[in-house]
């Protein structure tokens, strides 16, 4: 309180007004904070409290977090992290190359705007329709599977199935690439042509320019974007739900099952899983923010 009053005096507010102004500056945000408290804070508080409460007595305990090492739960976390890592790295690299191709590859300009609009669509095209589309393409009787069989390549003979972890990764990439394109494009635009000219004046080859100048400048952005992709994949639920029908154990699916009924036979463990998921997401967002801040040193 006294802090705010000091600031207002520093701003030379008319002496009659400080009190009113002070109350107003809070009042305008009351609806927002009320809404956030009710529909973000309270649900989260319920999960947090439930995760440290004993199922029977309600006494504080850390047993629920200890139970996260239960094989089925640990597998879900391991699978989720693996799928997210793979799709973040592969999606990140290919999305980056795609963005470089349309921005610096001297392709017709229209391809660039087409890719950008399409990326907007594809990064939002997830869930049930996406899972269905890949089922039509790559399931046992899928169009692509049959087409490849016509060429003598039998996908399913080698044990591949779209309803597996690898399948989930292939499908998730469909929204991971485009998201990467959207995030990384401004950074690639920010590479100044002067840097390239300066490098070339000193006799650098294209490879040396990328290796010594462009990539080091882009590295924080690249890493940060990949972390964002990681979180994007880690939180995805609907696509995997439709695709695998629960055959592959992932954290969001396990939480979903826990909502429908206490399938873990341990209410507190369900809450602990949810909190674990929030923790992983939180870490990835913090990492993204820190790297983003660092990348602003060079890029605008």
């Amino acid at each position: 309180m006294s802090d705010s009053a000091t600031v207002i005096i520093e701003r030379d507010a008319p002496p009659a007004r400080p009190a009113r102004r002070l109350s107003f500056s809070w009042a305008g945000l009351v609806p927002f904070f009320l809404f956030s408290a009710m529909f973000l804070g309270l649900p989260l508080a319920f999960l947090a409290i439930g995760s440290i409460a004993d199922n029977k007595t309600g006494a504080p305990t850390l047993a629920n977090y200890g139970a996260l090492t239960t094989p089925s739960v640990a597998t879900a976390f391991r699978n989720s992290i693996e799928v997210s890592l793979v799709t973040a790295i592969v999606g990140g690299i290919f999305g980056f190359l795609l963005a470089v191709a349309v921005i610096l590859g001297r392709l017709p300009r229209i391809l660039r705007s087409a890719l950008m609009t399409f990326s907007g669509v594809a990064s939002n095209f997830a869930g049930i329709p996406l899972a269905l589309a890949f089922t039509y393409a790559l399931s046992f009787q899928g169009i692509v599977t049959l087409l490849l069989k016509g060429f003598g390549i039998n996908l399913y003979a080698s044990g591949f199935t779209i309803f597996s972890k690898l399948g989930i990764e292939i499908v998730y990439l469909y929204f991971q690439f485009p998201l990467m394109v959207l995030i990384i494009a401004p950074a690639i635009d920010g590479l100044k042509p002067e840097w390239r000219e300066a490098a070339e004046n000193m006799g650098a080859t294209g490879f040396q320019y990328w290796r010594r100048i462009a990539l080091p400048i882009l590295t924080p952005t690249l890493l940060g974007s990949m972390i964002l992709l990681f979180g994007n994949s880690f939180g995805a639920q609907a696509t995997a739900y439709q695709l695998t029908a629960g055959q592959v154990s992932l954290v969001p699916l396990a939480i979903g099952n826990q909502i429908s009924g206490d399938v873990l036979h341990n209410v507190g463990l369900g809450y602990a899983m949810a909190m674990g998921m929030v923790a992983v997401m939180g870490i990835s967002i913090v990492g993204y923010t820190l790297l983003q801040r660092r990348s602003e040193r060079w890029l605008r």
Partner: protein
Amino acid sequence: MSGGGPAIGSRAPGALESVANSSVAADRPRRSWGAPWAWIIFLIGVLYFTVPLIATFIISMRAKPLFAGYTNSFADSRFLSSLTYSFVIGLITVVLSIALVVPTAYWVRLRAPRLRPFVEFVTLLPFVIPPVVLVFGLIRAYSRPPLPFTNTDIGSSALLVFAYIVLSLPYMYRSVDSGLRAIDIRTLTEAAQSMGAGWFTILVRIILPNLRVALLSGAFLSLAIVIGEFTMAVYLARPAFGPYLALLGANRTYEPAAVSLISFGVTWLAMIAIALIGRGSRTRIQVGGAH
């Protein structure tokens, strides 16, 4: 292309492209056709993106008679009712979200800049809390007194709307905030106040019209997300489009292909609308990333 030597230090718009062209293109004869490696990467991308859609299209056309996959879908009353339900929920979400976000972002810029980091933090929380976790918490918190939302149909739908507002918060807030940055709200507000306008008049008649682009793009993005959303709708047992499509996918062959394509088309329309609205505007529009 600039005629003479490379324009070092030139900041003119378009300088990036022209200079990049002139510096790289010297050793490549077919510069107007682009680099081969760029084409290869681009075509791999096109292939990966289009094959699932083409497969879906082929399956949807296999129904006999032709287009039966589409006509059957339209004839199914639950198709229209679920799409309508999701659309109405989406509209309510957009309206309430604007009503919540615009005054907040306006107030933060004008009167409470010290609270900005905190407000921004809250608007980013939905990125940290995945939909499945949020709906888990909402159901646990609001299935008992004093606020038993989930006990009635209308209550569950209201809870769904609130959940979707939370989901759209990051996009809406960023969109509106960058829209506000582009206009001089302090001068506008003072001008309006000196003519005797109250806060409500200022917001509705001065600020909102100036935020058209930001609001419309935020609205279309939210709509695109909400209409196909599955996770929250299914656990709140709502008759929405996402759960309907999931059920259809489990029980039918051709119809879900047709409906998937339609839903893809709806997302396309929303994004094209955003691109058209955003054209020529200084507001930076963020799209992407909510599953």
